Each structure stands twice: as C-alpha cells, then as structure tokens.
C-alpha cells in the first residue's frame, strides 16, 4: 500500500521555477532518502508537500485521501537551524508541543502528557535534560529533543529535514535506531539527506533530485554512479566518487 502519492508538484519562488514535474509514490513502511546537490530543492519539496510553503501546482495524497484530511498522520522534524534555540523554554516543553494536537489548544497538558513527553525524552537519551533551557543544549542534543517531539506526535509518516547535519555520533545512532524502529512499526519515513556515503546503509529507497526528479526507486537499482553524475551534473567530488564506488 502507498503511504504517500505525490503527483506533478511544481514550486515557484519569485516567479522562478525551483522545482517541477515531481511525481513519486512511497510504499508504507519504507525509508526514503531525498538526495541531491545544494539548491536542488530537497527541503522545498518536503515543505511544499506539507503545505508549509505555497506550491504552484500538484497534488499530495496520504493513504489515498487528500493531504488536508490526513494531516494528523504526519510528523515533521524541521532543519535544526530553522528555529530559534534562544527561545525561553526547556526541552520537555518542546516535546509537549508534539502532544498539542491531542491535548487541544485550549486545554492544559495533563500529568499523562508530561509522562509521555518524558518517555519520549528517555527514548532518545535526553531525560536528564528535561528541564534544561534549550539554548544550553549542544546541536546533537537539540536534534534529539526534536526527535522526541516527533515521537510524541505518534505519527504514521515522518518527514525529516537534514536530521544528520552537524550532530555527534551518539545522536546519529539515535536517529538511525529510531528510523529502524519506525520502519518495523510500519511507519513511513522520508529524509532529506546530503551525505552520499551513508545513503545505501540508511535507506531502502532513494529519490535523486535536482530541480526535477532524476531517478526514483530502490536504493540498489537507483543509487549508481551514472545516476549520481546526472544528478550532480559533474559537480560530484573526487572523495564522494571514491566512497560511493567502494
């Protein structure tokens, strides 16, 4: 069954087309990496899919129904630098934000919600930091707080925007562990990813993107040097070439 069906997405920014002809479908319970050079429109694509930015045209179906009807099934981990980490709040509070749709906006969080938030923090090894002001956390710890918020959302389809960028080894492990767990639970995960070395290890499907989709499918068949050359337009570095080929 397809968790996600994306048809013909086109996005303009100040009258310039930054993304077009993007159509693909994502099977339930798969881990998909969205890969491409800087400025290829990877983040733009997931933001357009999630209706966070306006799209020129295109349609998104979630479990065969319109995105708007199924919005509650979606979890999202934004790029870490997109939010203000000097914001006056602590880690537990951020995780509780993941519960708000269930709690309701005009009600207070109950003891049960706080317990769930703490369980989620515990799962990513951040329970000791629950009351820590978020600006005092390291980049990796901040990313784990975001993961805990995603956990608290208890979504069916997760979108993550460059979760591995600038994090320590422990956080990277925590992210991979969580992705695998989600997959085992039949959840679907899409990740904007830029590290070519780890693509084959982490994802079972890949979308190669550079303003238009270059290739999409199972990692084994799609993630070839030829296709990467087409995606990166010859800008692929010697080092990356070496690591992909080995």
């Amino acid at each position: 069954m397809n968790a996600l069906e994306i048809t013909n997405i086109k996005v303009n920014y100040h009258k310039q087309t930054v993304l077009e002809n993007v159509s693909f479908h994502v099977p339930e319970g798969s881990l998909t990496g969205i890969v491409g050079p800087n400025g290829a429109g990877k983040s733009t694509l997931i933001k357009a899919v999630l209706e966070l930015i306006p799209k020129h045209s295109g349609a998104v179906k979630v479990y065969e129904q319109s995105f708007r009807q199924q919005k509650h099934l979606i979890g999202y981990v934004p790029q870490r630098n997109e939010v203000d980490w000097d914001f006056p709040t602590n880690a537990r509070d951020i995780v509780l934000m993941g519960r708000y749709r269930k709690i309701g906006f005009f009600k207070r969080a109950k003891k049960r919600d706080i317990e769930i938030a703490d369980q989620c923090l515990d799962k990513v090894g951040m329970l000791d930091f629950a009351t820590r002001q978020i600006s005092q956390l390291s980049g990796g710890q901040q990313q784990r707080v975001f993961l805990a918020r995603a956990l608290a959302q208890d979504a069916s389809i997760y979108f993550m925007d460059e979760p591995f960028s600038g994090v320590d080894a422990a956080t990277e492990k925590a992210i991979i562990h969580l992705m695998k767990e989600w997959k085992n639970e039949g959840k679907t995960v899409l990740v904007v990813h830029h590290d070519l070395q780890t693509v084959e290890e982490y994802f079972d499907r890949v979308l190669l993107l550079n303003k238009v989709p270059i290739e999409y499918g199972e990692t084994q068949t799609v993630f070839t040097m030829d296709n990467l050359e087409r995606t990166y337009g010859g800008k692929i570095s010697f080092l990356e070439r070496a690591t992909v080929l080995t």
Partner: protein
Amino acid sequence: MSYTGWIIITGILVGVTCGINGSLLVLRKTAMLADAISHTVLLGIVGAFFITQTLHGIPMLIGAAVVGLLTAYLVETLNQKGVQKDASIGVIFTSLFALAVVLLSFIGSQVHLDTEHALMGEIAFVPWNRFVLHGIDLGPKAVWMLSTVLLISLTVIFLFYKQIKISTFDHHYAILIGIPVGFIHYLLMTLVSLSTVASFNSVGAILVVAMLIVPGATAYLLSDRFINVILLSGLIGGLSAILGYWSAIQLNVSIAGAMATTTGLFFMLAFLFHREGLVIKYFRHRLRSQ
C-alpha cells in the same frame, strides 16, 4: 484621586500594557514592525478624526487597529513580492506616517492634535481629559482606554497562549499542526496598534517604542520561560513608570522621557548582570584565574 495619582496610574498602565505586548514582539523578532506600527497608527487617529470629527476613544482605537493591520499587511506583501523585509518596513512606515503628518496640517488648529503632541505626548495633561458619563466624572479617559486595551491583551494572550508560543518558536511546525499562524500574527499586530494608540496621549509615538521594546528585551535576558518573559516584561514596564515619574519630579524633567530612560537603565543593568552578562563573566573569569 489626586492629580499625581492619576499620572502614576496612567504611567503604570502604559508600562504594563506596552511591556506585555512588546515582549511578544521581541520574542517573534518583529520589534522593528512595532516601531513602524507605533508611527503609522497616527494615520488611524487622524483618519478617525476626519470621519467622526471628534477625538473619542473608540473611533481612535478602531482607526489605529485598521491602520496597524494595514501596515503589517503591506509590509508582508512587499516582502513577498521580493522587497527586503527591513526595506519594506522602512518604505511603508515612512510613507503612511508622512501621509498622517500632511493630513494633520490640514486639521491645523481645529483640535488639540498636532505633530509635536503626537510625537512626544504629554502625560501631565492626561488627568484633565476626563471621561464624563451622564454628568458623572469617571476619571481620565486615558486610564479607561489603557485599562480596556490591557484587558483585551491579557484575554487574547490567555486564550491563545499555546498558539502564540508554538508559532513564535517554530513557525512551520505550527502550520503543520493546524495553528492559524497568519491570524495569530495579525492578532498580535492589532494588540500592538491598540497599545500604541492608547499610550499616544501619554508618551507619544517615539517613546512608545521604548515602552514596547525595551522591557521585553530586558525580560528576555533575565528569564528562560516564555510566560515569565511576558510577566517580567509587564513588571519592568510598570516599575519604569513609577521610578521614571519619581525621578522626573526630582530632576524637573519630562515625565515620559524619564520613564523611557528608566526602561533603558533596567536594560543596561540586565545586560551587564544577567547570567551570561559581561560583569558576571568578568568575575567568573577572575575567580577561575586565581
């Protein structure tokens, strides 16, 4: 109540109302938009006068709210059309304010509304402008207007606390979980417009910016909880009004000026002495090197 008492109450209301609403702007990094709105609401006041030919509170509040929203909307629109954010604020702010100044000179000496008064305000005159209903004197109009705006602000913040908080911290996530971020943004801009126009008579368009932004910026340095920043900001605003009034009387200077200066002093103290402040860092460094 005595003349002095009314002035102090007015000052406290200005400080608390502007402090609370301003803290939200500081957290949302839209302080410059507040600066713009605090000036363009003059157009709302002049417009309200042209339509109603009076300077009553309610038409003034409505006029200010309309022009405040218009300002926020035009800035947003220019920005979306590719003009840089600070440039669009600069363009909208100056042109609407200039239009208000031109219209003001048409009114001329018809009423007590002139450029200097609009820019500087005069809190010392506030107690004479009374609110009289059916022959009963209910106190200065400014106090009524400010109390109304404070009550509206507190209600809005109480009702929409979570939505304001999430959309301030993480705009995109807020959209995803169904928070009407546009509505929240314009709601807060309305509160700023209302606070400004209610404070106009007392402190004027220029110093109201100090009352809006400085207490919020100070509280932001001192607190690490969203709710505490809001409350502390109101407290600093109110305290600045009291201390400002006291020092103005001692030194025989402008009351509004002294209030705004006091907010600045609070900020200086917080900047130097907060947890990560220069003074604390200096002493920590010395302790360590000994």
